[in-house]
């Protein structure tokens, strides 16, 4: 197994973590729905408690995604985080306020009041749009330069420099980025509605979730399909495997799908599973397991999308300022040795998934209901 194998393997793992993160954003989607679906204090408490038992998974996946990206592709870490400063900071602020809100919202003496913490949760919920916007730049590009020779300039040794003063906020001005941002937000809401249907035993919440599911699915499909078609036919950033020269190629991402049939199959199966989970829930009033189909489908779809961004000789973090500064999985990765060491550690991942599954099952064995909320000292 050569260096290239490990680079591909780590792009796969980072993509998988990214895909799991998008699935787990049902927590954020749910937070954006607390006022829409929860009309009374008790209903909101039920919504927040069912989400509150899972929020740490989303949070941890984000942190691990960051750590894994750092370990495997450090040039991305230095270029994107140091450059798109304000985009990342905005996202981080959204997550900081989330981390305390569950624990603090219903506690006496919480200084800001329950309403403020619920608003924090709502902001974090809508803020998930930023994840989509940032990920969209993998396909639309950013404005930066990478020059490793800068290091020997002792007055200004910074290797990666951002070439506009908005430092990441300019990504919000690109329609295609916004489309993916909205698609992620509406998908998160779809997943949340399916999750509420599965975990809360309350007729009103069930009814409102099913109603919201239809609207959010429609909005998701419009945004996602527009982004998808636009991206598949747009020019993409191809890398010559021999010279490592980056160039713009028409319909590069469509070619990637066609040239990697297994990835294409994963993508199609993912889309089918997403739609099946939603439609079956809408058609069958007693069916409550839609979250698993749509959730796993989401993981498959996002995984395939991220794989076509980085595999098959593609620059996954393109620079529109200087094409040759674009990051590829070969020019931005850690050393062969580090990737090998990290790959051994990655063998722990199935074990981690196993105990998460066990604990998830233990906690979600019974649906939440009003009685439990009224008679429980360990609740948010």
């Amino acid at each position: 197994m050569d260096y290239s194998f490990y680079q591909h393997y780590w792009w796969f793992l980072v993509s998988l973590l990214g895909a799991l993160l998008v699935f787990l954003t049902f927590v954020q989607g749910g937070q954006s729905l607390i006022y829409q679906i929860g009309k009374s204090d008790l209903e909101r408490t039920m919504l927040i408690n069912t989400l509150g038992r899972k929020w740490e998974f989303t949070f941890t996946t984000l942190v691990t995604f960051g750590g894994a990206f750092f370990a495997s592709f450090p040039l991305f870490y230095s270029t994107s985080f140091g450059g798109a400063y304000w985009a990342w900071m905005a996202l981080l602020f959204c997550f900081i306020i989330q981390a305390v809100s569950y624990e603090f919202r219903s506690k006496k003496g919480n200084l800001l009041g329950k309403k403020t913490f619920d608003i924090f949760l709502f902001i974090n919920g809508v803020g998930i749009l930023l994840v989509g916007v940032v990920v969209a730049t993998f396909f639309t590009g950013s404005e930066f330069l990478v020059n490793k020779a800068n290091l020997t300039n002792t007055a200004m040794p910074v290797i990666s420099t951002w070439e506009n003063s908005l430092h990441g906020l300019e990504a919000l001005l690109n329609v295609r980025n916004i489309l993916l941002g909205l698609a992620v937000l509406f998908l998160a809401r779809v997943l949340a509605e399916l999750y509420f249907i599965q975990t809360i035993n309350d007729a009103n919440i069930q009814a409102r979730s099913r109603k919201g599911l239809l609207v959010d699915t429609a909005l998701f499909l419009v945004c996602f399909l527009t982004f998808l078609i636009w991206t598949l036919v747009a020019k993409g950033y191809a890398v010559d495997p021999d010279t490592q020269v980056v160039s713009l190629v028409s319909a590069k991402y469509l070619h990637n799908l066609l040239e990697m049939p297994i990835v294409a199959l994963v993508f199609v199966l993912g889309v089918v599973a997403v739609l099946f989970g939603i439609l079956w829930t809408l058609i069958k009033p007693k069916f409550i397991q839609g979250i698993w189909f749509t959730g796993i489908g989401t993981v498959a779809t996002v995984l395939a999308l991220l794989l076509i961004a980085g595999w098959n000789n593609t620059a996954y973090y393109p620079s529109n300022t200087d094409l040759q500064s674009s990051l590829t999985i070969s020019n931005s990765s850690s050393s062969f040795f580090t990737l090998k060491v990290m790959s051994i550690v990655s063998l722990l991942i199935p074990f981690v998934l196993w105990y998460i599954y066990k604990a998830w099952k233990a906690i979600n064995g019974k649906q939440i209901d009003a009685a439990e909320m009224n008679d429980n000292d360990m609740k948010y």
Partner: protein
Amino acid sequence: METLDPSLVDWSRAQFALTAIYHWLFVPLTLGLGVIVSVMETYYYKTGDEEWKRIAKFWMKLFGINFAVGIATGIILEFEFGTNWSNYSWFVGDIFGAPLAIEGIMAFFLESTFIAVMFFGWNKVSKKFHLAATWLTVIGATISALWILVANAWMQFPDGMHFNPDTVRNEMASFWAVLFSPVAMSKFTHTVTSSWIVGSAFVITISAWFLLKKRELQLAKRSIKIAAVFGLLGTLLAAYTGDSSAYQVAQKQPMKLAAMEGLYQGQNKAGLIAVGLLNPSKKSYDDGVNPFVFNIKVPGLLSLMANRNINSFVPGVNDLIDGGYPKVSKSGEPGIALSAEQKMEKGTLAVLALKDYKLARKAGNDSLAKVNQAKLEENFPYFGYGYIKDKKELVPNVPLTFYTFHVMVIIGMYFILFFILIWWMNNKNTLHSQKWVLWLSLLGLPLAYICSECGWIVAEVGRQPWVIQDIMPANMAVSQISAGSVQTTFILFAVLFTVLLISELSIMIKQIRKGPEGLN
């Protein structure tokens, strides 16, 4: 020519310091209180005594409140390496990123999975599963501490790597050298055991308050019984590991040790300052002003601590800047220490050699590239000195390092006596009637926090200007953003974290006042 704004470096440092100091308010309590809660639940599991369950649940509630803010303040630290120290992220990311990723995979999921079971699983899982979940949560937190401290230790003592001029970064050569570095082991054990002190002090302070109020007597006494023993164990281990930490500092970061002791002129048989007052009119290491207004020393102890030899020479700040004193090299060869100027020359040579290497490679001149590579390798141990403009930059803030070090040691010593006293009185069942001891116990928590934060200030201020010892100073590591942007995020963090802290304290106080019966 484009240059970096010097205030950018200062604001980036300030932001990292601010977020780290805030984060460290919550982490030691998680590490310490987590073990205490686990022990309490183990008592419940073994005895079936419902009172132990009630006690464990009470402390667990406080644990949860603290844990949440720990998470909120922690996420930013990981990402700040990228947002504010982007050059650092590339220059050493090949080594530094790995512990962060492993921390995520091995520790964060363990914590986040089982903390949910710990809080919501009481009526959903078996007693055994619940106990395992509680222990796994604190084990996860401790493993998390291990990996981040391995990463931090590597910055203080970079080992197990080589510099690759083609990729312009350091690359890992030995994972075991990074993981089992003596600095990492000292740092991990010292930090974790000192966190046990914070957890114990927390439990004792709150329990003492209950005793003063004549409430929850059984809860207070049982809690103190565990916390006093655990705290004493933590303090003794922290003292032992503190000694090995100091030895590592002396060997790897002698400038930090000199600053910790306010030692300007090196000495044979150097004494350790027990108490001392620095002379505020001393402005620079070379102004000839006496550094102390007064001090009391324990003769020979600094030499013993630094070199395991009571008669040995310990270099001071001036010696480290001027060089010329006998020094044993890393390979064990006797030699003479280089001066700061000589190191800066070597650093400049290394940076130039890298530049020439890159140019030669670009021109396809392999023989010239080889010559420059050899020159670079020879001078690489001083690479970071090439970015130092003035040798005075090499001296950290001596008063801050000196006072925080001594405050930490004095409070640490006090805690040994304190925990023995509390344990003894609690065992004799006389603690509740000794009001002065109970009032003294109320001071336990603030003192433990001061001690713990001081430890980090010593470690981090004392190593300035180095982000990576000798290889990368802070001005070489920053991101290129405007100082104003960092200033803005600094203010945002300061406001947000302060609000969160006040709100946490307010919730905690309300919960404690209500006691175990008034959860929520």
